[in-house]
């Protein structure tokens, strides 16, 4: 299988230079169902950051919402840096 080969090759190539970071990412991204945080919509919005520059959406954003999702990412990264 392509996937299995790619994963094994990737780990062999990168293992000397990667410690646990990518492994944590792999685990976190895959099946964290018991870690509710990763399915919690409210948490994913990084709510709690008040801003004078909200992203105002139109109906088309249901399909494509790059600005809004980027704002979510900014807020989430800020939360991670703040340790919240």
């Amino acid at each position, binding site marked *: 299988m392509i*996937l299995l080969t790619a994963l094994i090759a990737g780990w062999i190539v990168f293992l000397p230079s990667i410690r646990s970071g990518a492994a944590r990412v792999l685990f976190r991204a895959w099946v964290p169902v018991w870690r509710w945080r990763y*399915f919690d919509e409210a948490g994913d919005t990084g709510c709690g950051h008040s801003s004078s520059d909200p*992203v*105002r959406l139109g109906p088309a954003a249901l399909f494509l919402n790059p600005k809004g999702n*980027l*704002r979510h990412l900014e807020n989430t990264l800020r939360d991670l840096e703040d340790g919240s």
Partner: protein
Amino acid sequence: MGASFLFREMTVLVSVAVFFQSIELIWLLARGQVEGVLAVRSLGSRLEAGSFVGRAVWEVLFSGWIFAGVQVLRIALAVLMAVRGAGSVASQLALLLTFYSSLRFGGSFNGGSDSMTLIALSGLVLGAYDPRAGLLWVGSLSILSYFVNGLRKGILRDWWSGAALEAFIRSSEVSIVPVQMVVVRARWFHRPASIAVILFQVLFPLFMFSKTAILFALGVGILFHFGNFVLFGLNRFFWIWVATYPAVAFVAEQIASRGANPL
């Protein structure tokens, strides 16, 4: 409805979700907005790439052109899977490239929606060999995601009082603003809506035991995720969770058939 039909439906819906996700990322890349939020240079430390060589490799691997090329490839795979079905090669590639895309942002671009996308795509990989296995995998995890989230809300007093919901809606920076304002002002609405969300999520697994109940649950689910888009701008959640609904219907069918003939 047979497993093959439901698996086909799930494949199309997952492909739609991946399609829109990739276009969003290309849009952001084209405007140079990704690097400003999370520079490739910082990935090495996030992923704990211990050596200079490791960090340099990451910077090349996630450079703009390669990342854009991967998104174009994801779009092509999404179209291919929607039209031709989730063959084992296409679905494995789509899964691998989606994981790569998540890595670019240190784990995920949009939190839970990326996680569920990976789960859905891994279901397509499984389903290319056995549609029933793919549907059961995705369906059971989708059901569990509602239950776990409901449980988590259910242990917090602020969710039962409506205060948490009001606070989240009020502080949302991404929304259809006129609707958000109306909902914020309708203070009578916050507590019953919050209780309804908790009960819907916690009781979600029970809806599997009745055909009428599962149809009701899926309809409410669509409205729930649409509401999350309107109030929080969570469009990706809408598409990927709805994409799991054929799998949820399959799980419900299996439970119903066991109930009709327990032996």
